C-alpha cells in the first residue's frame, strides 16, 4: 500500500515542501529511503522503528520504501521523521487514511516522543496542507503562519489517539506579547553631544554609522543605545525576522513573534561564514541575516578579518546574501543597519598628539579596512572620552524615550514615501522627494568643486539631509541647515592613502 504524506524541509531561511511517499509491499523485509536524504535524515529508519514499537504499533515485516519528493532537493535534518511514521502507519493499515489530510513535521525520540525542529516557522509555512501537526514545543511559532490550522502532539501515541478520535487535538493558545525588557538609556551617556545626535539620525533614517575614537571613549556604550531608539517592527517585518531566527535555530520569545528590531554584535573573531551565512550543510543564515530589519554592530572594526568584512559588500549593496553550494542555493535576506566602532590607530590615540604607532603599524592597520567599506558609512563621528566635569555633573541628556518619539515621527514620514527608512531610498528618487533649496544646492556645489565631496558622497549627503529634515518635521525643499548638518556628520576618514575624491 502507498501512503502520501505532506511535510517540508529547510533551505536557507525558506521552507521547501516535501512529499513523503511510503510504500509497503510484499518482499523480503527491508527499509530504504531515497530522495537525497542527508545523514540525519537517513537515520530516520532507526528512530521511526523504535518510536513505533514503543508506541505499541507494529513494524511491517515486509519491504518498505520511502521516497522524499522532489528528488532533486537535499532533505536536511530529522524533521521528516513524523511524516515518515504517519505514512508507514497508514500504509500498513494501522492508522486511518484520514490522517493524510494534514501535514506533519517533527523529530522522533526512540520512545515515541515527538520533538520540536529548527525552522518550524518557515517549514510550516511551506507545507501544502490546510492543517499541520507539529511537536508541542513548535506550536507557538507554527501558529504565526497565517491560513494554517496548527495542532500539536507530544508523542506518537497521542497522535494516533487524536486521529482516531479518542482524544481532542491540542491547539496552540494565543500567548500575550511579553513586556519589553529594559534597554540601556541614552541619558546614561555623558558628553559627546554630537555622537548622541548621530545616533538619533541613524535611528531615524536607518543610516550606517561609524564611531571612531580611543578605547574607553564610549563608542560601545553609544552603539548599544541605538535599539532603544527604534520602534517595534511592523507586522510583515516582524514575521520575516521571526522566520529568519527560527531557521537559524535562534530562541524565539514565548509569544513566538519577534517584535523588536534585532541587535546582533558578533565578536571580531567571527568567520566569514558565521557573518554572512552558508556552511557546507544547511545554508544557515549568518549574523547579517539575523540582523535583518535591525542592527549589526561591529565593535573593534579594525580587528575583524578583512576576509569576513569583504563578504559584507553584497548584503550592504543588495540587502541579501546569495549562497550557493553543490546541492542547493538560497537567498538569505540581510537588510541590516550597520553600526561600527573603531580605534583610529592600533594604540588608539591618533589625533590627540600622543599616538605611539609607527608609520608601518598605522599603514598596516589602515590597509585592513577597505575604502569601499568605509565609504558605506554615511554617518561618521569622532568620539572622545567624556570630560571629568561632564561625568560629575548631573546629566542633562535626553532619555531614549524622548528621542524615540522624534525618531518614530521621522520614520512615519519615510514610510509615507513607500520605504521603511530613508536608507532604502532609491537614489533616482532624490530629486522628487528631496529637492534642494537654492542655498543648499550652492553649499553642495562648493563642496564638490572644492574636492570635499564625490558624486556618490553627494547622493548620500542628500539622503541624510532628508532624514534631518524629517526629524525637524520640515517638508521639501531640503534647507541648507539640514545639508550643513549632514556634512558635519560625515567626518572625512581616508584609510587607503588617497588624498581626496573618495568622500
Amino acid at each position, binding site marked *: 500500500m502507498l501512503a502520501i504524506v505532506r511535510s517540508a524541509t529547510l533551505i536557507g531561511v525558506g521552507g521547501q515542501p516535501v512529499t513523503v511517499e511510503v510504500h509497503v509491499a510484499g518482499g523480503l523485509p527491508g527499509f530504504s529511503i531515497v530522495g537525497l536524504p542527508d545523514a540525519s535524515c537517513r537515520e530516520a529508519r532507526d528512530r521511526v522503528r523504535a518510536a513505533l514499537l514503543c508506541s505499541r504499533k507494529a513494524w511491517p515485516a515486509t519491504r518498505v520504501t520511502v521516497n522524499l519528493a522532489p528528488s532533486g532537493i537535499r532533505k536536511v535534518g530529522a524533521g521528516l521523521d513524523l511524516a515518515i511514521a504517519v505514512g508507514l502507519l497508514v500504509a500498513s493499515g494501522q492508522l486511518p487514511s484520514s490522517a493524510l489530510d494534514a501535514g506533519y513535521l517533527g523529530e522522533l525520540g526512540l520512545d515515541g516522543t515527538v520533538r520540536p525542529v529548527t525552522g518550524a516557522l518557515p517549514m510550516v509555512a511551506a507545507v501544502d496542507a490546510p492543517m499541520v501537526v507539529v511537536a508541542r514545543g513548535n506550536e507557538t511559532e507554527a501558529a504565526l503562519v497565517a491560513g494554517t490550522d496548527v495542532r500539536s502532539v507530544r508523542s506518537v501515541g497521542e497522535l494516533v489517539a487524536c486521529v482516531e478520535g479518542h482524544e481532542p487535538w491540542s491547539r496552540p493558545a494565543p500567548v500575550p506579547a511579553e513586556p519589553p525588557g529594559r534597554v540601556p538609556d541614552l541619558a546614561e551617556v555623558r558628553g559627546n553631544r554630537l555622537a548622541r545626535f548621530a545616533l538619533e539620525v541613524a535611528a531615524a533614517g536607518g543610516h550606517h554609522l561609524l564611531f571612531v575614537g580611543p578605547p574607553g571613549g564610549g563608542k560601545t556604550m553609544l552603539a548599544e543605545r541605538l535599539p532603544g531608539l527604534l520602534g517595534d517592527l511592523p507586522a510583515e517585518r516582524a514575521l520575516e525576522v521571526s522566520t529568519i531566527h527560527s531557521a537559524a535555530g535562534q530562541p524565539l520569545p514565548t509569544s513566538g513573534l519577534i517584535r523588536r528590531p534585532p541587535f546582533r554584535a558578533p565578536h571580531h573573531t567571527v568567520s566569514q561564514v558565521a557573518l554572512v551565512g552558508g556552511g557546507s550543510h544547511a545554508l544557515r543564515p549568518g549574523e547579517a541575516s539575523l540582523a535583518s530589519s535591525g542592527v549589526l554592530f561591529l565593535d573593534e572594526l579594525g580587528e575583524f578579518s578583512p576576509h569576513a568584512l569583504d563578504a559584507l559588500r553584497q548584503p550592504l549593496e543588495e540587502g541579501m546574501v546569495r549562497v550557493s553550494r553543490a546541492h542547493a542555493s538560497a537567498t538569505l535576506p540581510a537588510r541590516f543597519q550597520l553600526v561600527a566602532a573603531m580605534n583610529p590607530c592600533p594604540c588608539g590615540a591618533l589625533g590627540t598628539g600622543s599616538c605611539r604607532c609607527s608609520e608601518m603599524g598605522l599603514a598596516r592597520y589602515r590597509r585592513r579596512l577597505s575604502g569601499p567599506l568605509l565609504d558605506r558609512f554615511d554617518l561618521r563621528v569622532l568620539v*572622545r572620552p567624556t570630560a571629568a566635569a561632564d561625568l560629575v555633573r548631573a546629566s542633562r541628556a535626553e532619555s531614549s524615550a524622548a528621542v524615540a518619539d522624534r525618531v518614530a515621527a521621522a520614520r512615519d514620514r519615510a514610510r509615507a514615501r513607500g520605504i521603511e527608512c530613508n536608507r532604502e531610498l532609491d537614489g533616482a528618487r532624490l530629486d522628487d522627494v528631496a529637492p534642494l533649496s537654492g542655498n543648499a544646492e550652492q553649499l553642495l556645489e562648493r563642496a564638490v568643486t572644492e574636492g*570635499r565631496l564625490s558624486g556618490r558622497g553627494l547622493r548620500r549627503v542628500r539622503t541624510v539631509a532628508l532624514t534631518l529634515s524629517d526629524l525637524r518635521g520640515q517638508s521639501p525643499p531640503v534647507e*541648507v541647515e539640514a545639508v550643513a548638518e549632514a556634512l*558635519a556628520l560625515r567626518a572625512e576618514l581616508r584609510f587607503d592613502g*588617497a*588624498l581626496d*575624491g573618495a568622500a
Partner: protein
Amino acid sequence: MTPGASGAAGPLGEMERARLVALALLEGFGPVRLRVALEAGPTAAWAHVASGREPDGSAARGAAAAAWPAALRHLDPAGVWERHRDAGVVVTVLGDPGHPVGADDGPDAPPLLFWRGPTAPSPPSAASAPLAVVAGGLDVVYPARNRELWRAVERRGVVVGECPLGVRPERWRFPARNRVIVALSDLVVVVESHDAGGSLLTAGFAGDRGVPVMAVPGPVTSAASAGTNSLLVDGCAPCLGIDDVMMALGFSGGARGSGVDPGVPALAPTVRAVLDALPVEGAGMGELVDVLDLPLAEVSLALEQLQGLGLARAEQGRFAPALGP
C-alpha cells in the same frame, strides 16, 4: 610645428624640443647624453645619432649606440610631442625660465623635465599643494598601490619627472630622481631611511647644493631609522614636528593662525570664532560644537567656508588651521 633655431643659444623651437624628447626615449640616453644633444643642437644631434654616432658627432661609446639608427627610424618626434601635449604634459628644457636647474649645475643636471598638474610647470607656491618627483614617465604609476596618491597629487599640485611618457622606472632612475628633488627644495627633511637608503643620497645632493637637511630621529632598534639617525650623528638638525620645519624655513610663531592676515577677506563673527577655536593639533566636529556652544549647522557652514578659503583644513575628521602663508 615651427622650425626654430638650433643650438644652445636662444630658445628652442617646438621641433627641436620634440627631437630632444624623442632622443630621451633611446636606450642609453641619460641626462649626460641628452645634455650633449642639447648643446650640439637637437636637429644636428638627431642626424649624428641616426648614423650611429654620439650626439656631438664623436665616435659611439658603449654598445647601446648600435641600436640607435634602427630605433630612430621608428621614432616620430612630432607624434611623440603631440602625445605629450594631449596628455597635458608640459616640458621644460634647460635654459627655459621655468627650468629649476641651469647650465652651471653640472653635466648631469636634468636637461629635460616633464610636468603635469594644475600648477605645472612650476612648483606650487601654495603650501597646501603637493609636488611629487617620480622616477619614470608620468603615466607609469609605480608602485601600483600608490595609484590613488599619484592621481591625487596630480589633481592638486604637480607631478614631475625626467622621463618621457611610457618610460619604465629602471633602478638607476631612482637615485637620479633624487637630485631633481633637491633642485626643487629649500629644505630637505628625511623622515626614515635604512642605512643605505636613497634618502641618504638625497641628503648628499642637498649638501652639495647648500640646501639644509633635517632628519627625524627614530628608535635605535629600528632598521628603518638607521640612516636618519646616522644623519643626526653627522650633524643634521633633528626634526620632531611641523614647528621645527617652519622654524627652519624661517617662519616664526609656529603654525598657529595668529593675528589678522591682511590677505584674508573679512569674516563674519561666527566664522571668525570658529577659526580661532581651531587648535593646531586639530579638533573633531563634536569637540568644536561643545567648545563653541553654537548650533551644529552654523559650525558646519563656517568650516565649509573656511576650507573653501584655504584657512582651515580637514585631516582624518579633525579640523585645524591651514598652514601659512
